[in-house]
């Protein structure tokens, strides 16, 4: 599956598999070519998103297959990617005893950046410059997350991998962060995993859906939406019948009203009498891909 032409691909994954010694296969025979842009990696918990990102971030090696950055196999030469990689892991923590400035300066130095103005610039970018000299132990979850984002961007990476980066951010911070990623994705590769589909709606140039370690769909957002066209419905279901219907159908969202439950349903055929076909949204397309196979 490809969301970039192979010639333009920054990263190429060929038959990548990660099997743990206890037999669990976290990622199974995954192939993908990635150029510049923002790739949204979607999938339920346990789908293998984090393990895939860790393999791309050179933290763990595939047990089979290859990951190439340009023409270089990163298992054999991880530094080729590491020198230009930004990575924000899931549930990123901080060193409580350091100030924001010290914390960021530390990661900058590890990445070979010794320019203090770059550190200041990043603190301004994530809106932490006013608290640069405060110990990060007292920061809120959102502030810590923003500091994590700053460390990922500090070396101006060509490949940026962010795992659930918007968790803990308030709506304003999420918007700010989406804009940052969108700007970066213009001429670089951003791989962004999330559960919140609305986070990627406005910025993703490609979408990949994983389920049980496999890649079940990759497409550009318009194609992804197109694949779900004709499979999204809205219907008013009597309250008494709703519990039964909820078990039978994939309901994207529902609102209780005085005349029953107004439900948005993802289904390949008309799910019930009175259901009206509607234009799919990204969330619907994601549910469609998970429930009814490939979306593109």
């Amino acid at each position, binding site marked *: 599956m490809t969301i970039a032409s192979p010639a333009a691909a920054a990263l190429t994954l060929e038959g990548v598999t990660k099997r743990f010694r*206890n037999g669990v296969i976290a990622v199974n025979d995954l192939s993908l070519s990635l150029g510049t842009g923002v790739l949204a990696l979607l999938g339920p918990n346990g789908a293998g998103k984090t393990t895939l990102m860790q393999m791309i971030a050179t933290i763990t090696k595939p047990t089979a297959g290859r990951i190439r950055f340009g023409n270089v196999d990163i298992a054999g030469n991880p530094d080729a990617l590491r020198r230009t*990689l930004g990575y924000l892991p899931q549930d990123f923590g901080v060193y409580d005893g350091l100030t924001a400035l010290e914390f960021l300066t530390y*990661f900058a*130095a590890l990445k070979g950046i010794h320019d203090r103005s770059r550190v200041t610039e990043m603190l301004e970018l994530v809106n932490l410059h006013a608290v640069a000299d405060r*110990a990060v132990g007292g920061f809120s979850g959102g502030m810590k997350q923003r500091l994590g984002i700053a460390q990922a961007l500090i070396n101006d990476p060509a490949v940026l991998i962010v795992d659930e980066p918007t968790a803990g951010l308030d709506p304003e911070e999420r918007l700010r962060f989406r804009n940052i990623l969108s700007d970066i994705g213009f001429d670089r590769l951003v791989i962004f995993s999330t559960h919140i589909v609305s986070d990627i709606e406005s910025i993703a140039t490609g979408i990949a859906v994983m389920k049980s370690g496999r890649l079940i769909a990759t497409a550009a957002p318009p194609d992804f939406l197109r694949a779900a066209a004709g499979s999204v419905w809205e219907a008013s279901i009597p309250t008494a019948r709703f519990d039964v219907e909820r078990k039978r159908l994939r309901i994207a969202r529902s609102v209780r009203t005085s005349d029953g439950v107004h439900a948005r349903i993802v289904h390949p055929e008309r799910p019930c009498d009175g259901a009206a076909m509607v234009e799919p949204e990204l969330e619907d397309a994601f549910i469609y891909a998970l429930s009814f196979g490939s979306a593109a």
Partner: protein
Amino acid sequence: MIGDRDSALRRIGTIAGTDVRMRVARGSTVVVLVALCIFAYVLVPDLSTGRALMQVNGHRALYNSATIALATSSLCAVMLGLAGFYLTSNTVRRDAESRTGFVIASTRVRNFEYLAGKMLGSTVFLVLVVLVYVLNVMAMQVLRGEAPVEPLTYAAMFLAIVGPVIIVVSAIALVFECVRPLSGRIGDIVYFFLWAFLLSAPAAAVVRSGSDGASRYDVFAMAFIINAANDQATSDFHAHPEVSIGSSRFDPTQAPWRFRGVRWSAPVILARITSAMLALPALLIAWLAFARFDPARMKEGAGSSRTGVRARVSAPLHRMLRVLRPASWGGPGLLRATLGEIALTLMLRPAVFLAVLAAAIAGVLVPTATVRTALIPIIFVALIATLAEIPTRDRVARVDGIRNGIIGVRASSVFAKLLAALGIALAFLLVPLVRVAISSPADALSLLIGGWLFAAAGVGLGSLACTPKLFAAVALLFLYVVISSAHAPEFDFAGWNGTADNGVRAAYFLTAMIFAALAVLGNWRASRAER
């Protein structure tokens, strides 16, 4: 190429510098530094009290720089050998737990650079701790000494005696963090025995046969100190000298003995350097075992433990202990919370249940003398491993926020933890208590107080320092002193030597209450920080 080397050194320096900064900012560092001030004050006794720091054949050593530097550096080596490990053995784990390790693993930092940086950070931190200690000791010489302070004498002695300890302990701490089976509480206990071996084996070899070979692994400088003191004492007294280091009563009718210092010959210096070199194989082991935060290697470890011998033993125990579901219990909130803490301890560590059972069976089967001299000390070592994590496990598992959100839990949690720790201590000590009580009720009271002391210290030090390491270090060091001072009533905290009197019992009970107060203070401080 030169640029690369420069970058590597810079990265090592950055890692070390940041590590030191974080350690210095910790609450437990303040505890250590305050303890060092008190320690220096107690260590160099005022001669008017009839006690001296060092004696040879009943002659107290004159308080000059050579004497005070030799004695205090040797005691520092012993203490730092143990405490230094616990102070520095959480540096890789901190990166793993905060997940900053993943970011480091995705950079061009080499494994060697990372480990060298971490080791250098630990070394510099321990050097800072020793510097504070030396300054305190020198201040004591100004106050109580009988000769001018000679800073160079101090520098040479501490460098030779404590230098290798700092380097080797920093390296061993890294090994214990990188080798998975040694990276937990078991490792803390294993290190205690390694420390005891490294401390006693070279000294025993020198005493037994005058073996020079022992100096090659004389990390804690025990053989070096014996030789240094013996050399001059033998020529001064023309007899086999009996050297005593540490505060003890002296005979004021005997003339003071003047220690002139160590003769720094090439073999002596080489022996100290060779001892420090033991850090190199340790670093190599750490480098080979370092997983570079690869979650696959960590999960494989966890996976193998689920299918290994340990898992086969603990799985049925775990099932059996499910009956201890605190949710189904009634009773007052504090009682329910206490039973919940005990149940959680047993469910998280089913081996504790086996250990309690083993202690009870051994308590019934072995003679009373063995209960006192062997079983009770072993139980206290097991208590250190068991109690150390009770005050900090909620924070480590990041469930403290959830727990504290439940009405009344925040206020009662510290008392529940104290009572749970006491309950577990009593479960371990129950049969020995009965056995001791039959022969000596007073010693049984001491044992009860000893159990309460460990329970309170475990929760108090853990709550205050937010790490189980401080309690483990302090308690193990204390146990070592207690076991080495079998005839000193002031150290018979649990009555196993039968020498404690009511004054000693009252003092340890008071100390336990102070630790309990520290636990309440730590809890109050944490709740204030949350507001």
